[in-house]
């Protein structure tokens, strides 16, 4: 992504959701994009995912300048070069787990043995070999997200874009999903971009990119809000010292909750 700007509206009302952004990721890397709400993370993800066209700048995926492609050519880019993992899993409810995966390979045409084999292979790899025929409503949140990951990998894309992939999962399932994404990057040699507020994603990140006010800010020191667990920028955030350590908060509400009973807040999160 080179010098990408996305502006909504015009004149005095113009909003720069992304402002002259440069971003690069290599195969085998996991980059976690963090930042406060309204920083431009979703805009960044949708432009990277060929769903939105930037106002200016270029976006290249595996050497293909997707900003030079016509609107009609973008669906092919999304299907073949990018895998999406969504916060709400976004599986098709009427289709079985394996059909959700084969669908993107066959474009919903009659079954192809090759597609079924690849989907089975992926699902076995993700520990879903026994859930091939299950409908999404019969799967747990973690299983649904693993099906979504299998779907994202189905066409063997170079880039995986994950939008808050752990937001709807408990901590154990969330950690499993994070490990899977890390494995995909390192072992399958994919570039994985994760947009997240979840501090646990830092554990698997090759690097963290902090997006704020439409630009990536280098060398931003971050910490985890001990109350809501969000990752917050150290500088400028409400802070409180407790037992010789400084804690940073996303808002004064979290700060006040912490102040009321720091020991319980820390103990609660440790559980």
């Amino acid at each position, binding site marked *: 992504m080179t010098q990408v700007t996305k502006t909504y509206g015009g004149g005095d009302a113009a909003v720069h959701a992304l402002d002259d952004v440069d971003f690069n990721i290599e195969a085998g890397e996991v980059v976690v994009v963090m930042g406060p709400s309204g920083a431009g993370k979703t805009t960044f993800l949708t432009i990277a995912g060929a769903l939105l066209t930037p106002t200016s700048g270029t976006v290249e995926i595996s050497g293909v300048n997707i900003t030079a492609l016509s609107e009609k050519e973008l669906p092919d880019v999304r299907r073949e070069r990018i895998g999406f993992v969504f916060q709400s899993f976004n599986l098709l409810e009427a289709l079985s787990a394996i059909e959700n995966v084969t669908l*993107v390979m*066959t474009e*919903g045409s009659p079954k192809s043995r090759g597609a079924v084999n690849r989907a089975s292979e992926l699902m076995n790899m993700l520990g879903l070999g026994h859930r091939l025929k299950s409908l999404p409503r019969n799967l747990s949140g973690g299983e649904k997200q693993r099906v979504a990951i299998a*779907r994202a990998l189905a066409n063997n894309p170079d880039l995986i874009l994950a939008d808050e992939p752990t937001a709807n999962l408990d901590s154990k399932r969330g950690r499993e999903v994070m490990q899977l994404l890390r494995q995909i990057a390192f072992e399958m040699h994919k570039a994985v971009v994760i947009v997240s507020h979840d501090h646990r994603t830092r554990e698997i990140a090759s690097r963290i990119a902090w997006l704020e006010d439409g630009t990536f800010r280098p060398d931003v020191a971050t910490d985890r809000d001990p109350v809501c667990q969000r990752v917050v920028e150290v500088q400028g955030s409400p802070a409180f010292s407790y037992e010789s350590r400084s804690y940073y908060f996303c808002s004064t509400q979290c700060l006040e909750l912490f102040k009321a009973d720091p020991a319980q807040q820390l103990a609660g999160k440790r559980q």
Partner: protein
Amino acid sequence: MLLVARKNLFSEWTRLVISVGGVALSVFLISLLLSLYRGWDEKVGGFVEHSNVDLWLGSEGAEDFLTAASLLPTEGKEAEQAKEYLNAYPSIDQWSPMIVRLMQGVRVDRISATEEKIGSKIDIHFIGFDPNTRLGGPIEVIEGRDTPGPGEVIIDEKLGDRHGIGIGDTLRAGGRDWTVVGKSRGGDFIATQTVFVSHAEAQAALRMQGATTFYVIKVRQGVDPAQLGAALEDQAARNEAPIVTHTREEFAKSTRDRVTSNVLPILFVVLGLAFIVGVSVAGLTIYTATIEKAREYGILKAVGFRNTYLYRVVFEQSAVTALLGFAVGIGLTVGIGPFASDYVPQFVLFTRWQDVLLVAGVTVVMALIAAYIPVRRLGAIDPVSVFKG
């Protein structure tokens, strides 16, 4: 069929049953009304069409068989002149007078103490034909005698079936009692049925001595009845005798028009309503299904499916719904057709394959319209929306 279309359609049986039911109801109504129209068309014009009369000659203003608004002389100077002409025409094979009178008769069940004939009233077309030429007589006698003698009638089988009249029973019509001696086929006009007596008996019973309703003509082979009719009309005009002639086809058509021209506007309105019902039910169920699945269509767009694919999904769902509805609707019409008139005599259904094709075409239009609005909605779905929780 596309996987998504098939799964969406068959994963929700209640919705499928409602939408297929809506289309089936519509197809059933449309095909039933069309079949009913064809049935009436066939019956009403059938007698004239299948009779052995090539040319009908009536007094001016006589346009159809049902009203039989004609009166011609059989005696006197004019009649003799007419007979002379008819006998002289080399292209005429046979001719004879024929009486047709719409009237009410009584199926006599019993006779009261005051000699009153008591029974159910029946609407009939009382026909007097010449037993020698048999022109305008029963089309096919299926039971009993084929020629009625004095005081005897041949009734149409449908009259017998509907009112329980058999051979040997008494029928009162035209102020006289008649004994049923035969049954014929092909004289059912839905609302009325034919009752045949000899021309002389009809004249006497109806006090029509010296008069008849029509002169009916059979032409020699190779002769064009229309040309003969035109020549007869010219001849009559020269003698200031206002007559009209109708070929078999013309007379059958005008007889049909007498009934169907009144029914057609109503029929078209009901057909239109049935079509709207089908489009509405199918359209609404497909539209609500599309709206409910808007997020899923957004997902498909996000992961790389084109709008054309999504359109195909909706069109296929609509097409399969319409196809199933068509099969059920047509099946019902074809299934009940042969038995309907057994329970409701006026419910004469005649389903032609051309009409089945027509209804199939209407169903395709129904499917296209039902899919049109949902498809427009699909085009407006923003794939970016799937990133919002």
